[in-house]
Structures are given as C-alpha cells and as structure tokens.
C-alpha cells in the first residue's frame, strides 16, 4: 500500500507526518531544527528520500539542510547566496531605490529529474539553482536583470520569490511569482524572462495595464495540463490557459477573494482549492469559520468545504505554501494554519480531520506520495 509523507515547516522547527494510504493514523516526528523558522521543506520527485529544507533565523541567517534518508538525518549544505554581478537596487516601500540584499530562502523546488538539482526562490527576489545537491548555489540572474527589476517593490512580507513551477512537458519552461512584482516566465531554461501578468488587476497600481507590480500570492498547476495555471492574487483568484500569457478572473461566489494558497486536485485537473481570508487588514478566515473552497469546473463556482473544520471562534490564517495534495485516488488535500493545526482530507475535501493541532505556526506544507 502507498504511503504519504507530509513535510511541515513551522516558526519553530520542522515536523514530518507519515501515514499509509488510508491517511487515517499518523506518526509524527520532530521537531527537526527546533527553534528555527523553516520557511520551506520539500522532497525530490526523482529520489523521494532526498529532502531539502530552508532553515532561517533573524540571529543566525540562512542555513540549508539536506537529507538523504527521508528526513531521519540531516546535514547542513551550502548557504551562500551571492547575487550575480553588482546587484544594484530595487524599489523600497517609499519608492526610493534600495540595494538588493539577500535575506532568506522562501521556496525550494527540486528538479523533476535530478535529485541534485534544486531551484531556490529567495528574498530579495531572485532565483538560484544548485546542481550539486546544495553544496553551491548560483543565481539565474536573467530574471533579476529583467528591465523591470529596478522597479520591483516588496509586499508587506518582503520582496520574496515564493513560487516556482517547473513544466513537466518542457524542461526549458519555468514560471515563477514574486511579491509584489508578479509572474515571470522563461522558455530557455532561465536565461531570459518576461513578465506574464496580462489580465491581472490591482487597485493599488496607478497604471491599470502595468507590466509588473502585482502581489501574486501563489500559483498551482496540474502536471497533465501545464498550460493551465491557477493563481491566488492578493485580491482575486485567476486562471490562465496559455501558460500565463493571459489571465481570467474566476473568483465567482467566494466569500472573500483574498487569500494565500491555491492547489489543484491530483486526480481532477479542473478541481481547485483556495482558503479565503477576510482581508489584507485582518489576516484570518471570514466569519470565524475555517472553510476551504472547492471549484470542480475551473470556472467561477465555488463550494464551501466545512466537514471537520472549526465553524466558530476560528481566527487562523493559511499561508501561501501551506496547502498541498498527494497523488492518491481519491486525492488527499492538506493544509496547515498559523494556529498550528495540519488538516487532512483523504477524499478530496469532503471530510477533514486534524493530524496535529498544537504545532507552532505552520509556514509550508508539502506532501510526498511514496510507493
């Protein structure tokens, strides 16, 4: 029977949750790296025992960790992220130029085919890659040196590159997202990039047709349909069917179209999940009810999923990397909250239960489906 390994990063360490394919009984290991913020933890699709973690601290900076045995043991690997050439400036909150400064790794996306190759999205926004298992990291500087880079401005959480989508049908195509610059795409393996934000709207931008400046929160893709992407924008949920060349609004009947994560059901490429959040001023769920919303057509009709989730006195948030799916049928859906719960639905969202409910605030949740 298949197994599921859920990788959870929190404000105070990493936890690994494992179950068999029933996804009913769980074993919990951790905290790994106790006391450190784990901004991301992810596994290689090419070698499921190879894991990478971004371990950060306001005191001690960035540490990178690698495991070769599914998270039982870890070793620190290279943590030097040096921008290519003279980094120059981006735009600060007040509109003045501000030097590019590395702060932390927000997201790790292992290659689909090589366990030693990993992409890292960092703050201040840039894309790095290792091809030696994390020993050394090198910037794909064509992104940051795109003509718009000097005008990129941080979102409230910083100028972070937080989403990396690798196209399984085209190794040369990568789509990334930056808060608050927007979506960018390369079709030549990362040498050159172009903005991919047509159709996005932001009430904060004076120019309604601005090429960049969008606070994209998260993107999701089903591997069988790499040209179809779903987006949680700061406000608005969007869809693209041309690999981010253009975007259409699908917020429909959501109670709030503000939120952070978006995920696609592994068995149903048109079934999409988001977690509406009340507003960008109040980062908790609307009406004190924790509701995942499911869209079965990829259009703009959403249904609330509540069975097993708290429906009163709930004031948690679900962050952008904190929702994931497994590859089983029916698809398991997982998300973590700032209240320290990690929920699972083993039936595509119909029923939910908490695997753990007293962890530190959850940052990322990733899932591995093991043979």
């Amino acid at each position, binding site marked *: 029977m298949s197994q599921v390994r859920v990788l959870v990063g929190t404000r105070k360490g990493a936890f690994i949750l494992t179950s068999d394919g029933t996804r009913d009984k769980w074993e919990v290991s951790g905290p790994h790296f*106790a*006391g*450190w913020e784990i901004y991301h933890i992810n596994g290689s699709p090419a070698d499921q025992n190879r894991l990478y973690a971004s371990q950060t*601290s*306001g*005191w*001690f*900076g*960035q*540490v990178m960790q690698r495991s070769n045995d599914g998270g039982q043991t870890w*070793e*620190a690997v290279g*943590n*030097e992220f*040096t921008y290519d050439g003279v980094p120059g400036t981006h735009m600060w909150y007040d509109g003045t130029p501000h030097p590019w400064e590395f702060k932390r790794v927000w997201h790790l996306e292992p290659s689909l085919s090589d366990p030693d190759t990993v992409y890292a999205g960092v703050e201040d926004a840039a894309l790095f890659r290792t091809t030696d298992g994390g020993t050394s990291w090198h910037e794909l500087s064509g992104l940051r040196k795109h003509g718009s880079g000097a005008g990129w401005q941080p979102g409230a959480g910083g100028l972070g590159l937080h989403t990396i989508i690798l196209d399984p049908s085209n190794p040369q195509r990568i789509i990334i997202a930056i808060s608050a610059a927007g979506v960018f795409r390369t079709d030549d393996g990362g040498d050159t990039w172009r903005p991919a934000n047509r159709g996005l709207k932001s009430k904060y931008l004076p120019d309604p047709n601005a090429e960049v400046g969008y606070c994209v929160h998260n993107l999701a893709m089903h591997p069988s349909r790499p040209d179809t992407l779903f987006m949680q924008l700061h406000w608005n949920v969007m869809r693209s069917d041309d690999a981010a060349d253009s975007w259409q609004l699908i917020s429909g009947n959501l109670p709030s179209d503000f939120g952070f994560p978006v995920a696609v059901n592994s068995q149903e490429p048109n079934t999409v999940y988001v977690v509406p959040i009340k507003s960008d001023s109040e980062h908790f769920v609307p009406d004190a009810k924790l509701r995942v919303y499911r869209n079965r057509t990829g259009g703009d009709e959403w249904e609330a999923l509540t069975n097993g989730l708290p429906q009163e006195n709930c004031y948690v948030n679900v962050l952008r990397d904190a929702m994931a799916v497994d590859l089983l049928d029916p698809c398991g859906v997982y998300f973590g909250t700032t209240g320290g719960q990690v929920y699972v639905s083993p039936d595509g969202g119909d029923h939910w239960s908490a695997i753990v409910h007293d962890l530190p605030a959850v940052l990322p949740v990733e899932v591995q489906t093991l043979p």
Partner: protein
Amino acid sequence: MIRVELPYHLRTLARVGAEVEIDVEGAVTQRSIVDAIEDRYPMLRGTIRDHVTKQRRPFLRFFACEEDLSHQDSNTPLPAAVAAGTEPFMIIGAIAGG
C-alpha cells in the same frame, strides 16, 4: 588553545557543547577566531558573519573578559587572557525578539 563559547542554536547546528577549543595561527583576533571556527565547523559559515563582507551579524555580540568587544575592529588583538586560553571568547545571541 583558544576557548570559544557558542550560543545554543549554533551548538546544535555544529553538534558541539557550549564551549569549543580551537587553534589559531598568528594574532588572536575576532577575525582569526571566526576564521578558525568556520574552518573547523563549515556549517557555521554565514551564521556568525556575512559570507562576503565578513561583517558580524547584527544580532550577535562578541564578549570576553567582561567586555563587549563587538564594535572593535575585527583585526584588533584580543585580551591576553583569551589568547592564553584562560578566558573564553563568547559569541552571544542578542536577547531580542521574544
């Protein structure tokens, strides 16, 4: 032999106890001590000072012999008691952030 005290999170990262002993060649300075620490414990590179600028990370402090030496030039010789190994060189995390 130079004695160096590390803060808790760097001890766990390097998998050592509260105090480590290192050899330093030449003058005993903040820079030569951190150089030696990083040579012996490569996982600590970048956690005490910046990889490139070699500047001390802002929320760390260097103490020895009941003095805060954090703002001394990193090439200034440290007190004789540190060089002699009778007093430790202390790397301390700021009490900040809750």
